[in-house]
């Protein structure tokens, strides 16, 4: 993904180069195959899972998981993480429901997304300017936003009185719903921005090689603000859509999206060391997590056991990354050693000729 992988592929090293690409790249084909296998397995053993309704339920779950995964992926690419994404989404859902009467549904949704995005930008600005770890900053903001959500909602679950917009979000267009279309458009926009826009590339740069990027003249502030703004916007969009679609919003809700979103982001190939991951990877990871969690739901697995499965999946992905990283380092070292000994062998007889 990043430019650092451009190791020249010599003819004798083609196979190890291929292996290296598989180890280093987000393993999208692998994830896709795994997801399909998982889906077929669930569909074969679970009633209704393979039906129209089952697929539609996947799309519904994908709203929160997909957006959380997308937002977290962007911050993880920047080498940071936004722990406040859950309470930011909760605040957005409360705003989207609470102000629905006074501002109209669409106005409330836009307000919620704006507020969440500004909070995200504030996170990024604070982290960049103070040069503190995003963990410290966003864990504080997690509590601030939780409190804010409770204040806005008046310490209770708020409910909609006008369900028109919420009902529109639940409409069925074949296997799609308006919510899912919005989510997919968001993924497309963020993925394109990350891949092709200069500012998007900067996010990779400060994540993968921060010191070098800063030395090369990239400001830390801009990519950080943009990355956390995207995370905030994703949280806001997720919260607003969930609040409007469900008709009610709790200030204590949505905190679980930190676990599902992080799992999806890592399944989708984002690396905690920063600089790696992509918008479509975030979507693929989210689809995998959604297939798992909807499958468990359809089998009647209680919510708490779903969190155990998703937690186990996250730990497994981390373990796989550790192993892949170790193999990768060992391969690189061997290659470098070979190269060094190769040049020595060539240089050995050379000096006498030149002199």
């Amino acid at each position, binding site marked *: 993904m990043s430019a650092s992988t451009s190791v020249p592929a010599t003819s004798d090293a083609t196979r190890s180069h291929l292996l290296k690409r598989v180890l280093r790249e987000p393993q999208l084909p692998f994830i896709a195959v795994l997801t399909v296998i998982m889906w077929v397995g669930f569909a074969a053993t679970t009633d209704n899972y393979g039906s129209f309704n089952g697929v539609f339920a996947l799309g519904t779950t994908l709203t929160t998981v997909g957006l959380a995964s997308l937002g977290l992926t962007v911050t993880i690419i920047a080498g940071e*993480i936004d*722990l406040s994404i859950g309470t930011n989404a909760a605040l957005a859902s409360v705003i989207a429901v609470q102000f629905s009467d006074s501002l109209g549904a669409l106005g409330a949704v836009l307000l919620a997304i704006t507020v969440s995005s500004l909070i995200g930008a504030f996170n990024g600005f*604070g982290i960049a300017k*103070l*040069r*503190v*770890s995003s*963990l*410290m*900053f966003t*864990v*504080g*903001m*997690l*509590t*601030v*936003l*939780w*409190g*804010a*959500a*409770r*204040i806005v*909602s008046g*310490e209770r679950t708020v409910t909609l009185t006008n369900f028109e917009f919420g009902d529109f979000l639940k409409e069925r267009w074949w296997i799609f719903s308006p919510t899912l279309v919005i989510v997919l458009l968001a993924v497309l926009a963020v993925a394109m921005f990350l891949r092709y826009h200069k500012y998007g590339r900067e996010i990779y740069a400060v994540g993968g090689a921060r010191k070098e990027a800063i030395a090369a003249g990239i400001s830390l502030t801009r990519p950080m603000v943009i990355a956390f703004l995207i995370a905030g916007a994703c949280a806001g969009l997720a919260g607003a859509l969930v609040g409007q679609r469900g008709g009610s919003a709790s*200030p*204590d809700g949505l905190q679980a999206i*930190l*676990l599902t979103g*992080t*799992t999806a982001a*890592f399944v989708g190939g984002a690396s*905690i060391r920063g600089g790696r991951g992509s918008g479509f990877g975030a979507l693929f990871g989210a689809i995998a997590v959604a297939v798992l969690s909807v499958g468990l739901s359809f089998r009647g697995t*209680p919510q*708490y*056991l*779903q*969190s*155990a*499965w*998703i*937690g*186990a*999946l*996250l*730990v497994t992905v*981390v*373990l796989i*990354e*550790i192993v892949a*990283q*170790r193999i990768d380092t060992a391969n690189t070292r061997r290659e470098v050693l070979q190269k060094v000994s190769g040049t020595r062998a060539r240089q050995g007889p050379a000096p006498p000729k030149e002199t």
Partner: protein
Amino acid sequence: MSAPPRAPKKPTEDAPDSGSRSVVQSLVDRTGSPLALGLTVVLLVVFVAGAIDTDNFLTASNIRSVLRTSAYVGILATGLTFVTISGNFFLLSLNEMAMVASVSFVTFIAMGFGFVGSLLAVMVIAGLIGALQGMIVGFGGNPIVVTLGAAGVLFGVASAFSNNEVLPMTRPHPAEWLGSGLLAGVPAITWTFLLVVIAGDLVLRHSRFGRTVTLIGANKEAGKLIGLHPLRTSISVFAISSCAGALVGIMVSSQLSQGGVELFADAVGPGGDLTIGAIAAVMVGGTAIHGGEGSVLRSALGAVFIAAINNMMVLRGFTNGPRLLFVGMAVVLGVTVYALSRRGQS
């Protein structure tokens, strides 16, 4: 109500002040960053003014209650300080560890293991769970991500094991003294908090192990070169922190004579859930997130400070929302002060 508590008013009023003065002093010594100092001073002035202005805040019984409330978060923060100093940030699985401990402790007691037997059994389980997380982190996993996953697993395990119900303990049970006992007029919970903090501080500052943790947190490569083992260290600190989480789970169960996941869902007001509260305490206490520096005493003081703010706001009639907001702002402010003072240093 006003006459008898007046006697202990003076010493208790001094207690938080003298602790914070040492923080200010160390800030002056270390930094000279006027903004950091200014923020700290403003926070303390607000706190002291609030303490004097709030009715019933500076009474003996209320201060006892603040110390009792801060015990849980304080014990967790003590364990967490080891992890943070070792350079491994935080555990996000403390609250869930307490859930597992609560459920298993009640089960062991019901099986007739007795207090000591159940305590030891739970501690062994907690130590192993912590060690496993520490091992994955030691092999190169990110602590936040690993413990976030572990939190999900532990939550599921605790819920499944208790069938997602609250398990009652038949009273009287052998752990009653720990939850509601008094010794010299001070609750056993507070005594435990005190003992844990003293033990933690002694181990961290005066034992070979504590110095190893600090060195590895400050400079892992240097630690490796002089023959220390970062893997062993991360296993130990995660085990310690998990045991602190388990102790809190046991104490909550002893106090409420119940065990279950529900007890930890919203039981412990201050910083939202226990994990976030403990992280907030460590950060307000100013332990360096990058490792190598920090103090158990300051983390414990952070826990007391947060509990005191919380208590003050309850007395002034604030609901949960503003309380969470204020605690969160204190953390963000603490992070800012920390960052500015570090910059002043360099």
